[in-house]
């Protein structure tokens, strides 16, 4: 479904602060695969997402989505087939618009009649039904402005916005990292259910190594703009967090030095 071939991204090329954020990254995702991505800060995880979304163009390499070459496609064109949830709950929704209106914007992937009234009654009913499946009691607050919701509720709305028209690729950029543990768990559960329901091809960045192994069916670790290792199938099933750390040590000959990741070793 997603095919990243030899992606290179160099920032500030030709200046003293030149920085290679992606160093010949190749990654292939089959349809329906759910891949978790781990790695310390500056490993290139978010850069990889930005490259796939088209926030900037690659220095080298190509990206294909569902057989189509999207390397030079404009950001909003790619967004027609890519859904993305950010870490910051503020980023994914328009705060002064209602839940219903936000969803209706996202629904435009499916219908593009610019001068029809939005949301139509039929759409409003559909949104209500979909959001009630989340079990967050949002279905009675469809006319509430999103700015009044909690972070977790906003992430749930954003997730629905990204999946109400199933995208070819779902990108989750640490989308539960800014939430309290209980809410994070809940949003993660909704995520798991939604991905399963639509068989979405998904890439999820997380700092939590335990949940990286627990969720999805493949785990990729990135470091210094490269893919360090790529675990799937039986090999992944037997892997523990300590194994991940050992794998990191073996390929880098240094210990993983990241408080945020290590602190969550015992968690969940």
């Amino acid at each position, binding site marked *: 479904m997603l095919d990243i071939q030899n992606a290179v991204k160099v920032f500030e090329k030709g200046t003293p602060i030149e920085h290679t954020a992606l160093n010949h990254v190749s990654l292939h995702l089959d349809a329906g695969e759910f891949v978790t991505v781990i790695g310390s800060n500056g490993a290139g995880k978010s850069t990889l997402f930005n490259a796939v979304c088209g926030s900037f163009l690659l220095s080298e390499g190509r990206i294909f989505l569902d057989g189509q070459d999207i390397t030079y496609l*404009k950001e*909003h*064109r790619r*967004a027609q087939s890519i859904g993305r949830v950010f870490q910051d709950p503020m980023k994914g929704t328009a705060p002064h618009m209602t839940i219903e209106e936000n969803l209706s914007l996202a629904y*435009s*992937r499916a219908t*593009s009649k610019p001068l029809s009234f939005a949301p139509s009654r039929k759409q409003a009913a559909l949104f209500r039904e979909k959001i009630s499946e989340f079990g967050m009691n949002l279905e009675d607050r469809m006319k509430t402005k999103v700015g009044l919701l909690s972070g977790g509720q906003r992430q749930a709305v954003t997730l629905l916005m990204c999946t109400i028209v199933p995208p070819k690729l779902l990108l989750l950029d640490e989308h539960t990292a800014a939430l309290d543990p209980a809410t994070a768990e809940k949003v993660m559960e909704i995520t798991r259910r939604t991905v399963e329901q639509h068989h979405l091809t998904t890439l999820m960045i997380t700092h939590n190594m335990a949940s990286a192994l627990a969720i999805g069916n493949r785990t990729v670790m990135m470091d210094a703009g490269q893919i360090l290792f790529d675990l799937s199938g039986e090999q992944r099933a037997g892997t523990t967090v300590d194994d991940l750390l050992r794998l990191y040590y073996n390929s880098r000959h240094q210990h993983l030095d990241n408080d945020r990741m290590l602190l969550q070793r015992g968690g969940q």
Partner: protein
Amino acid sequence: MKLLIDSLQLGMLYGILALGIYISFRILSIPDLTTEGSFAFGLSVSAAITAAGHPVLAIFAAMLAGALAGSVTGLMQTRLRIHPILSGIITMSGLYSINLAVLDGSPNLSLVRVPTLFKLIPFLSKSDAMTVLPVAAALLFLALIILFFHTHIGMCIRAVGDNEDMVRASSINVNVCKVLSFSISNALVALSGALIAQYQGYADISSSNGILVVGLASVIIGEALFGRRSVTLGFISAVAGSLVYRYIITLATRYSPLPAYMLKLVSAVIVALALAIPALRQNVKEARLKQGGKAHA
């Protein structure tokens, strides 16, 4: 009585201006200085074409002119990534020459001897038309704009003003939305100018000086009256604010000792004060907290 009616007429005509300002200032959250030029653009295009004997065509041409001016500003902001305020200033100063060119190099043009829209309405005397037409035009465009901002494309524009990042991550073209909304905003501003020219029976380019502040004052007064709850109410309050602003100005010029030329200073002070209210409130709150803290110490 005459004063009341005059203010109603002007309030409605400038109400259309306030609708345009509301789009840029509140929906996109970008104060658009193009307004200063596009109001005069509408004024002069309308006057020139009316003088040539086509008062109806003049209105449509003026709106088109305003839309064009707005899209120039919009394209500078999006395609060329020039700072929003600067793009407005650039368009505004460019328009100054264009407006003079439209009026054949003269800064004003009299329409006293030519038929204007207000003399052409069937069954209505000119004085009646001068009330009916502004009210009808303001209400018509108020309704159209409210409807537009409830369509899909209108909602996209609102989202761009609300959270640009989110819109970039969805499949909506942010640049198209911005250019479109600047066009619509300035088309309304130019329409207001076009009607004012025919209403007054003359066009004077300098009448657009400080027009942005007039529009902002209307929007802010409207919000003080109605609050900021929804976009529908926002547009209604902009027109109502324009009406109230006219009455304030009428009263101020009639009963205050200030000479008429102090009008713009008065408007500027009103707008500055209204915009400062949130900060002033905050200061008062903090001062109280400090006082309370000292009392307990």
